[in-house]
């Protein structure tokens, strides 16, 4: 089964450099300080942010800057079939990576002695899980009013027989490598880079560039959504 047809289209009709449709929403729930939901194609992720608030355990308290913790979990049926899994190491590793991403993006010095908790739940996964988690967390942090240096957008790219493809689904990603890039779009600096499966160094740069371009596209989407949210809420709030 070919991933890219002779006409140059993929299984779902996209060109190799086309992103999947992104639907997102800020502010689903009132209880957490910030919450957001994002759908990138069939990957659906929910994020909630609690904080900044008092640290739970004193020995983790850092008096120079805030402590950031992330906990990612997948629901049992996220992969299509119901799998009973404990918190396996892949999920734990991803949680640490996401926390690391936001260590670079949140202005930690503004919240000394406090703690920010990010909880991410994957409802359905179809490729690009870490990207979706990062994007959802960014929106949730913006909703919570936490000070950020910039948005953090993330996108995945892979290689298939010499052609670089953007935002691969599970099926497409099985063949080749998967490079996930998280970016601060307005500054152009990379905060996280993750590559699994072998990729040759000559192709690596092309793949990374494609993923970076994808991140910029994601930024446009998220930006317009946040703007719409602000317009909406602000009009109400100024009505006193």
């Amino acid at each position, binding site marked *: 089964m070919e991933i890219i047809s002779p006409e140059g289209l993929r299984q779902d009709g996209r060109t190799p450099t086309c992103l999947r449709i992104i639907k997102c929403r800020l502010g689903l729930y009132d209880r957490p300080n910030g919450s957001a939901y994002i759908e990138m194609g069939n990957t659906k992720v929910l994020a909630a942010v609690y904080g900044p608030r008092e640290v739970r355990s004193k*020995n983790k308290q850092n008096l120079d800057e805030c402590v950031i913790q992330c906990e990612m979990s997948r629901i049992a049926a996220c992969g299509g079939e119901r799998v009973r899994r404990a918190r396996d*190491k*892949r999920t*734990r*590793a991803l949680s*640490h*990576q996401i*926390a*690391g*991403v*936001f*260590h*670079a*993006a949140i202005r930690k010095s503004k919240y000394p002695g406090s703690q920010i908790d990010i909880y991410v739940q994957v409802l359905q996964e179809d490729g690009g899980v870490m990207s979706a988690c990062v994007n959802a967390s960014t929106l949730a942090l913006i909703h919570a009013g936490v000070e950020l*240096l910039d948005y953090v957008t993330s996108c995945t790219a892979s290689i298939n027989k010499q052609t670089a493809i953007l935002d691969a689904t599970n099926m497409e990603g099985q063949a080749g490598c998967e*490079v996930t890039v*998280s970016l*601060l779009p307005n*500054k*152009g*600096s*990379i*905060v*996280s*880079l*993750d*590559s*699994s*499966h*072998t*990729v*040759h*160094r*000559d192709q*690596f*740069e092309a793949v*990374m560039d494609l993923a*970076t371009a994808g991140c910029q596209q994601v930024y446009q989407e998220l930006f317009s959504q946040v703007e719409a949210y602000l317009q909406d809420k602000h009009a109400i709030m100024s009505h006193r």
Partner: protein
Amino acid sequence: MKETPLSTCERTALTDMVECGLRHDRRGFLEARDTTISFGREYGSCSVILGETRVLAQVTCEVVEPRASRPSEGKLSIAVHLSPMAAPHLEPGGGGGSEVDALQQVLERNIKESRCLDLESLCIRAEESVWQLRVDITVLNHDGNLCDASNMAAVAALRHFHRPDVLVEEDGRVTVLSHATSPPVPTFMRKVPVCVSYALVCPQEDKCLVLMDPTHVEERVMTGKLVAGLNPHGDITSLVFPGRVALKKEQIMKCLEHAFRRAKIIAEMVQQAVEDDLQTRATEDRPSGFRDKLVSDEEYKRQRFTHLMATKVLTLPTESTEAAVPMEEEPSAPEEQDPANETTTNVTATSTNGLVDTPDDLEESRTTAVIASVTKTCKNKKKKVKKTKDVKMESDSEEEQQQTLLTSQDLQ
């Protein structure tokens, strides 16, 4: 046990040094520590010493049923054990913890997912029995950069490993032949995956400096880390950059270029070490294993003493005898202690002296010294204060005897 916190002055000293272009162990920014690869007696047992970090990898094999989705491929599993043996702040149990998770993820990606090891060659009978190789990596001493060391150890161990030969009957029964009956078969590794770690230190907000092969202290001070898994053929097997610092694309590409250069060196080193060991193994009747290679604390101390001995003249016994004489007028307690002290110093003097000589002499001198000290202390305890002078005389004479013993050994 909780990790002792790094003091602020140490932390600022390290970051300031890095800013000025120095590292605390006087290496260059992109310079690695001394690496030693040595092999044990069995096939597949490898120890890597990277500066002070020591890692041991052991490969074992077993015949199992293959996975249903891949019926003609062998299995490979990698397990990392990071216990308080490596560093006191680690949790007992060896598993769990974020450090082990990260390490395991890097190793799995680099070695398993990169398919550097030809798993098809591990198949005995498709869908029925295959070899399962298990690599157990134990960290013996944690002084930073566990990724590089573990990866090197695992790869070297896999290359060094020879699996036993098998005999497959018609009815499907598999007989594993011992090493005596049939020579073991080496594993086939296509490309050698290498792992290179970079620590990213940010002395100020904007500046970001890259250090290769960080030590434990540097790891505690660093802001971010970049771990690149590659092989000299130009493939990037894994790249883990878990954030905490924002980097530009050019910096990452530069790191990768340097990593490729280093990968060539490491791959060659591993190849060379494996080949050397296999050759010596072929010539020797009984492989010596780790016995001569790993340096123990005792050995280290001995080497230090020999160095001290070579530079200084031994004066310990004469000093103590001179000290004994003026103390005759003093009360008994110090006098009683004095002989005991003298004996101990004499014992050590003889023992250090003895180290220069052959082991037999060492034994002799030691036993004489021990006997002398035991008899001396017994005599001291039994005798009363008024007889201290006698004690003194006796001890003097014995010391003189010992002194003569020493000098005679000195002359040898």
